[in-house]
């Protein structure tokens, strides 16, 4: 993989690690109201805490919450939602896409028309409607993202699988009378994976940013579990009064997350594309 690819992979791994280890890295639990001190509210970056010796390296928000701790926990939620919804949508899309490519005819027509209809809705509109019906919650936003994104994977999986199914190794597998599921999962799918993983890396960025958007609009996650999007929303009202850090730092972190996903997608695409392999 290219140097840029490794860089993005390491960056993403570091972010995942930071998110996983949030309870140990963060100086306070931002959800535990008992540890918050309202007198520490809206302190600029680098301020010392009033009652204990700690330093708020990235400042505090309106409730006196340490921004760094809140961001680590927010990252945790954003990544959980993003990765979970991506994995679910990838699985659902791949199953449907492979079925469409393999069976052709009416199965293909049915699945792909649903995909067409699905993709003609803006993803955010669909997610908004679903969340308006179900209410906020981590599992509900994961479902909403799944519903908004499976169609991309189905379409990609189908077109990649159609190409592979034309190749003679699939004909050979049919002649050897291997079970259909085995041909699809052991022969066709592994050869579609490079394309699918590229799309997955891109869609991971899209899922995280969609979740952030929904949370910013107040529809995604409950206030008790603030993701990066909700943190940005919380600081939004203070942005013009000079207290930039409450919105800007979570925003920057979101940009880093999305950029590393996109860089990774780019590196994966180059790896999968033989025309670019030599570059």
């Amino acid at each position: 993989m290219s140097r840029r690819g490794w860089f993005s992979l390491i960056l993403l791994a570091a972010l995942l690690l930071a998110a996983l280890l949030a309870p140990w890295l963060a100086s306070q639990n931002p959800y535990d109201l008992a540890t918050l001190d309202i007198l520490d509210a809206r302190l600029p970056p680098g301020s010392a805490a009033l009652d204990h010796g700690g330093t708020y390296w990235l400042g505090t928000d309106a409730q006196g919450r340490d921004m760094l701790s809140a961001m680590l926990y927010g990252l945790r939620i954003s990544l959980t939602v993003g990765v979970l919804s991506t994995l679910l949508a990838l699985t659902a899309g791949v199953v449907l896409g492979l079925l469409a490519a393999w069976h052709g005819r009416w199965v293909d027509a049915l699945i792909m028309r649903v995909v067409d209809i699905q993709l003609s809705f803006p993803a955010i509109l669909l997610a908004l409607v679903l969340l308006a019906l179900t209410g906020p919650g981590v599992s509900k936003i994961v479902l909403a993202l799944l519903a908004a994104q499976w169609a991309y994977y189905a379409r990609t999986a189908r077109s990649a699988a159609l190409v592979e199914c034309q190749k003679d190794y699939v004909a050979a597998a049919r002649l050897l009378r291997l079970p259909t599921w085995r041909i699809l999962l052991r022969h066709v799918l592994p050869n579609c994976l490079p394309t699918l993983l590229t799309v997955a890396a891109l869609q991971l960025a899209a899922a995280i940013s969609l979740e952030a958007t929904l949370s910013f609009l107040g529809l995604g996650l409950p206030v008790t579990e603030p993701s990066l999007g909700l943190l940005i929303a919380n600081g939004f009202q203070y942005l013009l009064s000079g207290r930039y850090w409450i919105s800007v730092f979570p925003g920057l972190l979101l940009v880093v997350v999305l950029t590393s996903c996109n860089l990774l997608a780019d590196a994966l695409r180059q790896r999968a594309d033989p025309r670019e392999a030599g570059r």
Partner: protein
Amino acid sequence: MNEPLFHARNISQSYILANGWRQRRSTLQALDDVSLALHAGEAVGIVGESGSGKSTLARIIAGLLPPTAGERFWQGQRLPDGPRDGIQMVFQDAASALNPRARVAELIAEAPRIHGLITGDESDFVATQLSRVGLDPQLAQRYPHQLSGGQRARVGIARALAVKPQLLVCDEAVAALDVLIQAQILNLLQQLRRELGLTLLFISHDLGVVRHLCERVVVMHHGRIVETAAAGQLVGLPQASLSRS
């Protein structure tokens, strides 16, 4: 004459080329009422230009493609659509015919394992199959891209033979190979045919190759069989007979 091992009767195949809105429905007749009988142990060649329908016929015989009309018989029994035990195929482009993400051992052992044809140790089975086609058993752990063109062709043959077919359909199996490697593969096919009593259907655009390997040659043109003869009798014919309409 005794019953043929395989019999294709009145096979026709047509494709719909255009059938859109306000378009005249037009079809392409790839095969037009083709019948072919293969007797056990026989080697039959099909020659023809590209577009003559010979590859389509190969795929229909193997059961990869359901014909528009016509029937297939196996030892007198009518065959349903789809592949059948006992018929295997060797493909032209060995690179595309081998799953690039599977090792040689898995390519060869997968189907026999699933069909319960392996008695004893699987790596011994793979080694036997590889030696039979003249490959070093050490190659079992390689991926297809780590093999030469000739080695890939041999793996393709080994995979087909590992499930003990009676009829082997070779679709331009040596067309992409250099002449020295082609000669090795032709010798191998001939030797395997003798050893295993295989029935061979050999599709090629190269009359010389077919004449070398087969006792009977079928000439196809525009989806029809235009000539069937013993290989020796075709010797005197000019190659232009391929383009006769």
